[in-house]
């Protein structure tokens, strides 16, 4: 089962949409999104669909495990679940947190290779570190923007090495502000076209994301 995951993540030709759709019947990338907020589910689903991803959205960690066949009730893994290429989960959820879900996924031989991204509106350093240490690929600040998801799918799903090293060198976006985004810092509208090849420069946004490839956070970014 781990092999299946690896096969689906191989590099694809450059003329594909970010989420791997061509007209030639090659499968799309499948993202499993987990969030207890109905508003956030709607938004993340649209963000991913606009990048031509196949999306499954569930409202809890336990439903995510059910879908993956990891809930202990179902001994055989669902066919659909085999093809999940990325899991994006909210951190704060009732019942099972995103962190607990992350641990269960990383503890499973079938699914531990699938990249997991945590989303949260609270930038608590200890929380971020805990998630990265447990194997999360990235910790995204909410509200999640198109540019965040586009960059993510580009290097996680297309496996573009240059994107990874570019991100690895960058510790934090230039404006790493805390909670309240001021009205004077809107990001200039970026076209959500699937074939956009613009590198996403987050210097105009006030949100931060953290990845495992970045070094310890500079002092400027305080925990909330």
């Amino acid at each position, binding site marked *: 089962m781990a092999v299946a995951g690896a096969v689906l993540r191989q590099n694809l030709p450059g003329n594909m949409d970010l989420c791997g759709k061509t007209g030639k019947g090659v499968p799309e990338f499948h993202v499993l999104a987990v969030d207890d907020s109905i508003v956030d589910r709607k938004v993340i689903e649209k963000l991913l669909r606009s990048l031509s991803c196949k999306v499954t959205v569930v409202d809890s960690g336990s439903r995510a495990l059910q879908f993956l066949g990891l809930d202990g009730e179902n001994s055989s893994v669902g066919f659909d679940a085999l093809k999940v290429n990325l899991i994006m989960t909210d951190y704060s959820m*009732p019942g099972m947190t995103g962190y607990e879900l992350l641990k269960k996924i990383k503890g499973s031989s079938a699914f531990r290779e699938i990249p997991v991204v945590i989303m949260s509106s609270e930038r608590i350093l200890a929380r971020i570190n805990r998630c990265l240490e447990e194997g999360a690929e990235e910790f995204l600040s*909410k509200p999640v923007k198109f540019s965040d998801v586009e960059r993510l799918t580009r290097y996680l799903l297309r496996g573009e090495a240059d994107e990874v090293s570019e991100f690895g060198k960058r510790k934090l976006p230039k404006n790493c502000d805390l909670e309240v985004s001021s009205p004077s810092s*809107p990001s200039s509208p970026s076209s959500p076209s699937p074939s956009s090849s613009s590198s996403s420069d987050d210097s105009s946004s006030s949100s931060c994301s953290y990845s495992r490839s970045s070094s310890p956070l500079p002092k400027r970014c305080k925990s909330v």
Partner: protein
Amino acid sequence: MELGLMQRRLEDYTKSLFMEGLLDAQFLQLQQLQDESNPGFVGEVVSLFFDDSEKLLNELTSAMDQQIVDFRKVDSYVHQFKGSSSSIGAQRIKNVCILFRNYIEEQNIEACLRCLQQVKQEYYHVKSKLETLFRLEQQVLAAGGSIPAIEVTSF
């Protein structure tokens, strides 16, 4: 009214919501996601937000009304409201929620009750404005026009 005038009115109205700080860049994100394949996207998200918010506000009111206030529960509701309002770009609601959570941490009941009032006011205010916005959009679309893309570079 002539289409060009309607579009201008819509544009001005939309800009005013940003100028007043009612909406922030996240709302623009939603507008950019809207396209021909899903022309009602923003309206759908906002509609979900309205339904969700009314439930949350009811729960919040009830929780604050208890003899012994369960602050963890209240915090959970406010956190949710902060999250959803932030996701649609309802900046003022979000900011009141941030303040609200500070008072929850202090377990300051009076201040929390004030915040509850304030958050309701902000909610109904932005709800009314957004409903007007969608009405203006519908008028433009019905007249055969398209929604002008808003370039908000300075406000």
